[in-house]
C-alpha cells in the first residue's frame, strides 16, 4: 500500500546520513573505480599477449631501420629482429610470478622470434632434454654466423643462409643438398641433420611437479605498465608516432562533440519533457510519444547517411547543399579567428544533431515519467490548491527534483554516447577518438587501440563517479544503491 503522504522512509534517512559522511563514501567509490579499471587493464593485457606476434611483425616491417637496410643479409636481419624483441621486451616471462615445468629452462623466453621459440618448445616435448637442444641450436647458429662472414661473392650465399636459419624453426630439410655449396659446408649441414635424428631418438626423464617461479620486475606486465604510463616507447605500430599525443589531439574533438550533444540533450529533455507532461491526455502528447519512439529507434548511422545524402550534397544529384558533407572546417588556418569558429560550428551542426537525438529521446521519456509522478504527489496537489498556477508549480515542485534525478543517467549514457560518437565521427570524417579507433582497427594498430580503450574506460568510470557524487550531493533522497 502506498500512502499519499510522501514521508521519507527509514532507509532514505539512513542514506542521507551516509551521504553526509563524505570520506568513507568517496573511498568506497574510488575503490570500485580502481577495481574496475584494473580489471579492464588485465583484460587488455590478456589481449596484448594474444596479439604480440602480429604486433611485433608490424612494428618491425614499419620501422625505419628495416626500410633503410635492404642490403642486410638474412642473418643480420635475424639479429635485428632479436634486438626488436628485446626493445619491446618480448623476450621475458609474462607475469611477475609463474609456474614452470621442471624440464623447461627459465631462459626459454629469451629465444626469439616466436617461430623459433615454438619449434624449440615442441622439440623439448619430444626429447625432454634442454641441454642437448641448446647444443643443437648453438651448432646451427654457429654455422649461420660462419656463412654470413663469407664474402658476398660466394655463389648462392643467401639461399644457404636462409636454409640454415630455417633449421631454427623447422626440422632440417633434405632439399638443402640441391643448393650448390662447398663440401665443408655440406658436411656441416649433414652433421646437423644427423644430430637432429639423434635428438629425436633420445628421451630424458620427464619431471612431474611444477616449480613456482618468481620473475620479479623483469616481466612483460611490468614493462607494459611502465610503457603505458611512462610514455616511453608506447608508439603506434603503424607509423611509429607517440600514441598519447595522437590520442590527445583526437580527444579534443570527441570532447567538443560529446559535451555539445550532452548539453543539448539535457536541455532538450527538460524543455520537451515538461511540454509533453503538461499535455498528458492530449492527442499532441500521444503524437510526441510516437515521435520520441521513432527518434529512439532510427539508427543514427542511417540518419547521418541520409542527412549527408540529402542535405550536404556537393555534386547536386537530387539533394540540397546546405551543410558541408564532413570534416572540421579548419583546414586553412590563416583565416580570421571568428571565421574559423563559425566555420567549425557550421561543420558540427549535422554531427551534433545526429548524436543528440537518440539521447534526447531517451532522457525526455525518463524526465516526462518523473514529472508525471511528481504531478500526482500530494505536495504538488497542495501547491495547486493553494492557488499556484500550473507553470509555477511545475517550475518549483516538479522540474528541479527530476532534473537532479536526470543527472543519475549521466554515467549510464556515457558508453552509448561514446559508441555513437564513434560511428558519427567515421561518417562525418571528424578527427576524433572514434575515427582514430576505427582507422587503427583497420590498420591493426594494437597500441593505439589499447590507448583509446584506456582513455574511454577512464572517461566512462569517471563520469559514473561524478554522476554518483553530484546526485548524492544535490539530492539527499538518493540512497546508496548497494545498501
Amino acid at each position: 500500500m502506498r500512502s499519499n503522504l510522501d514521508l521519507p522512509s527509514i532507509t532514505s534517512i539512513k542514506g542521507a546520513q551516509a551521504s553526509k559522511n563524505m570520506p568513507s563514501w568517496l573511498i568506497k567509490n574510488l575503490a570500485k573505480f580502481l577495481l574496475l579499471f584494473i580489471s579492464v587493464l588485465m583484460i587488455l593485457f590478456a589481449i596484448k599477449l594474444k596479439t604480440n606476434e602480429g604486433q611485433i611483425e608490424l612494428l618491425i616491417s614499419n620501422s625505419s631501420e628495416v626500410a633503410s637496410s635492404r642490403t642486410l643479409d638474412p642473418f643480420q636481419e635475424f639479429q635485428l629482429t632479436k634486438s626488436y624483441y628485446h626493445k619491446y621486451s618480448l623476450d621475458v616471462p609474462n607475469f611477475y610470478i609463474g609456474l614452470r615445468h621442471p624440464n623447461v629452462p627459465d631462459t626459454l623466453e629469451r629465444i626469439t622470434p616466436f617461430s623459433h621459440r615454438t619449434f624449440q618448445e615442441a622439440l623439448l616435448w619430444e626429447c625432454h632434454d634442454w641441454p642437448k637442444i641448446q647444443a643443437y641450436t648453438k651448432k646451427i647458429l654457429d654455422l649461420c654466423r660462419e656463412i654470413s662472414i663469407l664474402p658476398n661473392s660466394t655463389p648462392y650465399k643467401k639461399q644457404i643462409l636462409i636454409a640454415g636459419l630455417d633449421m631454427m624453426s623447422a626440422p632440417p630439410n633434405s632439399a638443402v643438398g640441391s643448393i650448390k655449396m662447398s663440401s665443408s659446408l655440406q658436411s656441416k649441414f649433414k652433421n646437423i641433420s644427423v644430430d637432429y635424428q639423434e635428438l629425436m631418438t633420445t628421451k630424458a626423464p620427464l619431471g612431474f611437479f611444477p616449480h613456482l617461479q618468481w620473475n620479479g620486475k623483469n616481466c612483460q606486465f611490468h614493462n607494459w605498465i611502465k610503457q603505458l604510463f611512462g610514455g616511453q616507447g608506447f608508439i603506434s605500430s603503424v607509423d611509429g608516432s607517440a600514441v598519447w599525443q595522437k590520442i590527445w589531439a583526437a580527444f579534443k574533438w570527441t570532447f567538443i562533440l560529446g559535451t555539445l550533444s550532452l548539453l543539448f540533450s539535457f536541455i532538450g529533455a527538460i524543455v520537451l519533457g515538461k511540454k509533453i507532461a503538461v499535455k498528458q491526455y492530449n492527442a499532441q502528447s500521444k503524437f510526441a510519444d510516437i515521435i520520441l519512439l521513432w527518434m529512439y529507434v532510427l539508427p543514427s548511422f542511417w540518419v547521418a547517411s541520409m542527412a549527408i545524402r540529402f542535405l550536404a550534397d556537393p555534386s547536386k544529384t537530387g539533394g540540397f547543399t546546405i551543410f558541408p558533407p564532413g570534416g572540421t572546417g579548419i583546414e586553412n588556418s590563416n583565416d580570421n579567428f571568428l571565421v574559423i569558429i563559425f566555420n567549425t560550428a557550421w561543420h558540427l551542426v549535422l554531427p551534433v544533431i545526429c548524436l543528440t537525438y537518440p539521447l534526447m529521446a531517451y532522457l525526455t521519456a525518463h524526465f516526462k515519467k518523473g514529472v508525471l509522478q511528481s504531478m500526482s504527489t500530494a505536495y504538488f496537489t497542495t501547491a495547486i490548491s493553494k492557488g499556484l498556477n500550473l507553470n509555477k508549480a511545475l517550475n518549483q515542485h516538479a522540474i528541479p527534483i527530476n532534473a537532479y534525478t536526470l543527472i543519475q543517467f549521466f554515467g549510464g549514457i556515457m558508453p552509448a554516447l561514446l559508441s555513437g560518437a564513434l560511428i558519427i565521427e567515421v561518417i562525418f570524417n571528424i578527427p576524433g577518438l572514434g575515427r582514430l579507433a576505427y582507422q587503427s582497427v583497420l590498420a591493426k594498430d594494437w597500441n593505439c587501440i589499447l590507448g583509446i580503450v584506456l582513455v574511454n574506460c577512464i572517461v566512462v568510470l569517471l563520469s559514473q563517479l561524478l554522476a554518483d557524487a553530484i546526485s548524492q550531493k544535490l539530492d539527499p533522497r538518493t540512497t546508496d544503491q548497494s545498501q
Partner: protein
Amino acid sequence: MNSQASISSVFQKLAKLWLGFLLIMGLFSPILVNEVPIIEIRNQKWKVPILNKKSYFLADTIVSPPEFVIHPLFRFQSGIQLGQTLKSPTYQFWMGTDGYGRDLRAIFITGSGTTLFIAISSVLLSLIIALFLGLLSGFYGNSRFHYPKWGLVILLAVGIVGYYFLVASPYFNFQYGSYYWLLLMVALSWIVSKLKWKRLVLPIDDLVRYLLGVHQSLPGLLWIFLALLVFTKVSILTLVLLLAFLRWPGMTRLIRGETRRTANLPYLEAAKMSGLSDMRLMLGHIIPNLRDQIFTGIIFSLGNVIILEAGLSFLGLGLAPDVATWGNLIAQSREYPTAWWLVIWPGLFISITVMSLYALTKNDPILE
C-alpha cells in the same frame, strides 16, 4: 480511449503481419532467391538443383535445353554483374540494383534470413547466460549463497593444478584439454556443493554486479574492436558470439531485478516452506513467473541486435561486404553516395522491423 485502443491493435496486427512476412521470406529464401532452378526435367530425368548447386554447375547445361523448369522468384547471380550495376529503380528492378549488380529485392529476401538468424541466435545465447547469472544473483542475493569453506580451497587448488596438467603442460597431451578442464571444474564444484562441511556465505550478487560493471566500463563498440583484434576474421558464428556478448548485461539486469521482486512473493515463501530445493524453486516457480518479462527482454534485445548488426556491417566490420545483408547495403552507400536507393530501403526495413518488434509488447522500450 476506444479509438486509441483500436488504433494500437491495428498497429499490432500490421506489425505481426510484417514480422511474419519477414520470417517466411527468411525461411524460404533459398526457394525465393537462387541462382539455379528449383526443379527441372532434362532428358526425362528429374533434378532438384537447389539441393546441390555445385554439381548443377559442373554438369553441361548448355548442350540440351531442359524440357521443364521451375525457376525461383528471383534469379540471383553471385559475382559481379557488369551490365546492371547501380541501376536506379525502374520497371524491371523497382528497388534498384547494388554495386555488384544484384537485384535489391533479392538482397532484401536473403538478407532478412541472415539478419533474423543472427539476431535470434545471439539473443537466445545471451538469454541463456542472463538466466544463469540473473537467477543466481537475484535468488540468492548477497547473504544466501552458502558454499563449503574448504571446498573453495579445494576448487582453487584443483583448478590451478588441473589447468597445469590438462592444458598448459604436455603430460596427457589431450587435444581438447581445456574442455576436459572445464568439465572437471563444473562437476567438481557441483560435488563439493553437496558436501556437509562448514559453510561460507558468498556474495554472489556482488560478483555478478562486478561483472556487469566491468562490461559497462567500456562502450560496446570498443569491446567489438578489442574482439576483432583476437578473431581476425568475422564469420556468422563470431558475429553471433559478439552480439550475445554485447547483449547479456541488459538481459541479466532485467532478470536479476525481476527475480529479486519475485523471490519475496508469498507463493514462493509457501513453496520454500514445503521444502522444495532451490533448483526446483528457480526452475519451476520463478522462471514461469518471469515469462512476460523474458518475452519483453527478448523483443527489445532483438531490436537492439538488429540495429547493432547493421551498424557493424555499416562500419565494414561485420560480415564480408559481398554477403547479402541489409547493413552491407548501407555500407555500400558510402562508396556510391549518389545511389539513394541503397540508403533508403535497408534503413526503412531495419527501422520498420524494429518498430514492429516493439509494437508486440505493451511496455515502453525507452523506459525499459
